[in-house]
């Protein structure tokens, strides 16, 4: 039985903000199915009482002294932007989006 359907892959692509083509959906559906069936092996391990590890280094908040340090100028920060205006990143319209989606 397939671990993942073509429709589910289309949904994942939407969540991932990837405008995949119909052809890609066909290819990816098969490939993701093989990958997911393989990685599902982790389920064979009895680990109910095992704590998860997210990181090999114990994570604590790292703070520094609150002093001013050199940073990027607005020109530098915007130097790679696809579109900029008045020292700001210019983006496509965001207000008319389908709020129901």
């Amino acid at each position: 039985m397939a671990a993942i359907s073509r429709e589910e892959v289309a949904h994942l692509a939407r969540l991932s903000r990837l405008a995949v083509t119909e052809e890609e959906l066909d290819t990816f559906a098969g490939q993701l199915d093989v990958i997911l069936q393989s990685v599902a092996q982790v389920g064979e391990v009895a680990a109910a009482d095992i704590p998860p590890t997210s990181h090999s280094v114990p994570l604590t908040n790292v703070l520094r002294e609150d002093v001013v340090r050199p940073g990027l100028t607005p020109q530098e920060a915007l130097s790679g932007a696809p579109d900029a205006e008045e020292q700001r990143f210019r983006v496509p319209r965001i207000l008319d989006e389908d709020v129901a989606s």
Partner: protein
Amino acid sequence: MTDLSKLTAVEIAGLVASGETSAVEVTQAHLDRIGAVDDRVHAFLHVDTEGALTAARAVDERRAAGEELGPLAGVPVAVKDVLTTKGVPTTVGSKILEGWRPPYDSTIVERLRAAGTVMLGKTNMDEFAMGSSTEYSAYGPTRNPWDLERIPGGSGGGSAAALAAYEAPLSIGSDTGGSIRQPGAVTGTVGAKPTYGGTSRYGLVAFSSSLDTPGPCARTVLDAALLHEVIGGHDPRDSTSIPAPVPDVVAAARRGATGDLTGVKLGVVTEFTGEGAEPGVMAAFRESVEALAKLGAEIVEISCPHFKYALPAYYLIAPSECSSNLARFDGVRFGLRVGDDGNRSLEEVMSLTREAGFGPEVKRRIMIGTYALSSGYYDAYYGQAQKVRTLITRDFTSAFEQVDALISPTTPFVAFPIGSRTADPYQMYLADLFTIPTNLYGGPAISVPCGLSDGLPVGFQIMAPTMADDRMYRVAAALESAVGTLTPPTL
């Protein structure tokens, strides 16, 4: 006259320091070599001729002024295109960052510059460091100098091939699941993955933040150790950087080179010596184990029962982190933007940009990660993988109560023909079978050449406890002293 491109970093630094040759001459020799062979090898995505010669001139001027030079001053280095370089293109092997010139240097590159090394350019890689063959680069594959029809490993195939083709004596890689060690193994070069947190991730384009580790690549163990020392150490700009000095890897490499391993206990990983590896790889590995025993090392077998689950756990954890990290490529602040015609919405432009800018492997991993993190699947996939990560870590810590280091082949197979594993993505993943456990644990590991199988290099892996990077250099240098380095065919 000596062919400067054939020298080790140690030899080059010595000649530059004594004034027998200049940094400019050394740099020009490597630029000439790149000009002569890189159209066939394609190790570089960008060669910074002007920047390299400027840096070399600065070293020569400092020497002329009587300044003290560091141990790698004047030595050329190639940098994987995953690290930001101020004003020099950084693509991560992806179309989504084509033409991007970062406004800042990564910490690794900053330290390379401060040490007086000469950056030749940026090396090819699988897109976003996702792959094991460099075939997933959006700019075409790198070829293995041992056989141009075969892969140089990945993701850092460019950094490894540049060494084997004598285009650079040193290079920088990054290792998330084996991307330094596996290319080192299949190109007959040395690649070291430092302890996670031992080298800074500041300015390293993120793939899987809990695993990504930049590190040194070279043709000899001592050269790798010298480079490790230059780039390693605490960085306040990386919150997971370990606030401790770099282990004394250079002294350890020199000690190992004496060929005495008396008192060192090594564990052969039982799970990695079975049917998973090619017979030729196992034969070279076994011979090297005997060589280490002759140098005085005590050899035992150690079972690490959860290592076989490292591959599936990794291919859930890394894609999950990648699906989050790569959300920043949205066509707003840097890189590509596609379809912004004034009518389309932000979401549409974002989706078109990412569709056009990412290659198939990156898309697969983003979707796998999105799946593994979805409610309903999280516990069975990502959550379970994190628990397996704990068990793999326990395998390591219990092994290191019994032995000083673990050993295995670096890869199950030698360099495979270009195109032979791209149709089935999971077949490609198997290349990382032996390298991945270390990344999940966070400790250091090194690949050192240990012989040939059918005329192609085999790598020997040494895995050490967290922050005991020096230990693996000692064993690696000892092995090198016994089996020698490998010389690739003339290109």
